[in-house]
């Protein structure tokens, strides 16, 4: 059972309130915010590692990122993944989800035959939840996202996908791509021993010359979606302070609620 897991290094979501936008250059500043593995990708890793522990095989991590993100990938190896593929090239910069999934699919194809590809349902930073199904489309594999339960039976998987007002369970013959939510498991912590071992594990780097994605869909130029300006959401309100005893405050709040049409 060979499993590919896509892992995205992101700025730690605990610090998103510190992200500042430069009103002049229209760029955002994330300086001082640590980089971590996107939360749901840890659930993807946990799912892959526990399947490997039961069925044998290997877990390979795929990350498209600048070379500086090596430390974050080492965390994934520290959790128990067996090998890593860093996909890094200037030509890939600015890729949207369609281009990113095209490149990741090409790297996965190049690295070998995988029975299962697991991703987090969405990343902490962009939260588009698009890469997982689009990876399935590029790999021409069946795919399911919003997965809250995942069981592997060797040649097939049973996955339960959350829907609005219920859920659907599918059985899928492998290979397949799944996108998991935090409901699927509780990720293990990375131990010191794990990090020590991670240093011995194969760490591969793919550049644009090593893989063959569809050349029409790579990098900013090959991305159907193009970024325009950015802004901070305008949410400021008057923020009038209500003071007094708890009774007085309660009275005023209820008055305001009634005025707003709440009865």
């Amino acid at each position, binding site marked *: 059972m060979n499993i590919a897991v896509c892992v995205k290094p992101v700025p730690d979501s605990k610090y998103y309130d510190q992200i500042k936008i430069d009103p002049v250059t229209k760029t955002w500043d994330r300086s001082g915010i640590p980089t971590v593995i996107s939360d749901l990708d840890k659930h993807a890793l946990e799912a892959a590692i526990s399947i490997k522990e039961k069925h044998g095989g290997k877990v390979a991590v795929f990350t498209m990122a600048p070379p500086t993100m090596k430390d974050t990938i080492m965390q994934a190896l520290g959790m128990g993944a067996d090998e890593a593929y860093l996909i890094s090239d200037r030509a890939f910069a600015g890729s949207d989800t369609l281009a990113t999934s095209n490149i990741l699919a090409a790297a996965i194809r190049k690295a070998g035959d995988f029975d299962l590809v697991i991703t987090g349902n969405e990343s902490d930073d962009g939260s588009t939840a698009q890469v997982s199904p689009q990876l399935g489309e590029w790999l021409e594999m069946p795919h399911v996202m*919003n997965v809250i339960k995942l069981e592997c039976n060797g040649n097939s998987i049973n996955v339960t996908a959350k829907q609005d007002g219920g859920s659907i369970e*599918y059985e899928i013959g492998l290979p397949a791509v799944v996108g998991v939510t935090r409901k699927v498991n509780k990720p293990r912590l990375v131990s010191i021993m794990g990090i020590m071992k991670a240093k011995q594990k194969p760490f591969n780097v793919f550049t644009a010359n090593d893989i063959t994605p569809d050349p029409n869909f790579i990098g900013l130029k090959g991305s159907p979606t193009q970024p325009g300006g950015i802004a901070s959401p305008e949410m400021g309100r008057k923020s009038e302070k209500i003071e007094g005893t*708890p009774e007085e405050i309660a009275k005023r709040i209820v008055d305001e609620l009634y005025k707003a049409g709440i009865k």
Partner: protein
Amino acid sequence: MEIQEKKNIYVGVQTTQVRDIRDFMMEINSYKNILVFAEVNDDKVCDNSLELIGEANRLKAMRNNDSLVIAALIGNDVKKHAPTLFGYGADKVVAFDNPKLEIYRSDLYGEALAAIVRNYHPEIVLVGATALGSELAPTTAAKLRTGLAAHCTALKILENGQFTQVVPAFGGKVLGDIYIPNHRPQIASIKAGITKKLEYKEKNGVVEDFSCELNGCDRMKVVKVEKDTETKKSLNDADCIVVGGFGIGSKEEWTKLEELARLLGGANGCTRPVLDAGWIDNEKAMIGTSGVAVRPKAYLGIAVSGAAHHTCGIKDSGLIISINKDEHAPIFACSDYKVVADYKKIVDALIEELKNRK
């Protein structure tokens, strides 16, 4: 995909580069109309889809041409919902009924929607960011090799005619404009509560049956479908939402917020940590980037700190009042009224006050 293929053909007959670009623009211009995927869940059209038909009408007015709003139904025995779609503003309804589409599967629904788009050439496709839509939209975009902007908070048409999608990043802390200049259709997914449905007006229209061969993946099958036993009231139906943050502290304390919501005839909402802690057993109650967006008449935030990924889901509320003991809580900046105090005494006094007024 089609754009790409056409381009290759032109290169094949050795046209000049200028000609190539002109043909490419003509190709883009052949895409017209706004298509809304009309999702049917539990034998009803989702409110989210009806809202998008309203939004499509707004975009159509901005387009100022003879664009149509086309609603596409996909499923088994879904054609019957056409009158609802006309009533909420669809100009045309396309119905793809097929027993294979009885239960949602990403492969079959993706094929179906992609086929409809290839046939009708809409310039814009709107899909509700429901659980189903969040998967169907990227699946279809990938099949068509076109662009998709996820969870848009606003859609605009600029003076030069450029369709612009505004998307949140970093949990709503940053809003970015997205353009899809050279690919069609331009697809957007939008959560419930962001756009508004039109008032229902009895109206007739043409329903076109659509069908095509559905291949699907023969390795995939549905094992079972489960419905949630309790039907939880959607926050979008509540005039007043009483929202608690992790600062509430315990499940016992949380019950007071439930009482408060009852007295106000409203509903309870929460932030991600509250849901994770299990104080509330309703995923639909989580407000923010990864949950729902709400626009009640009044929002009462209690011990909510106001992280960006929460506040971006409440900004369209009528009145916002928040209570927090931390004077620097970010929630205050986006509140009409703030109370800097330990919430417990205030909540007790509020319950007392409301009981007295009944």
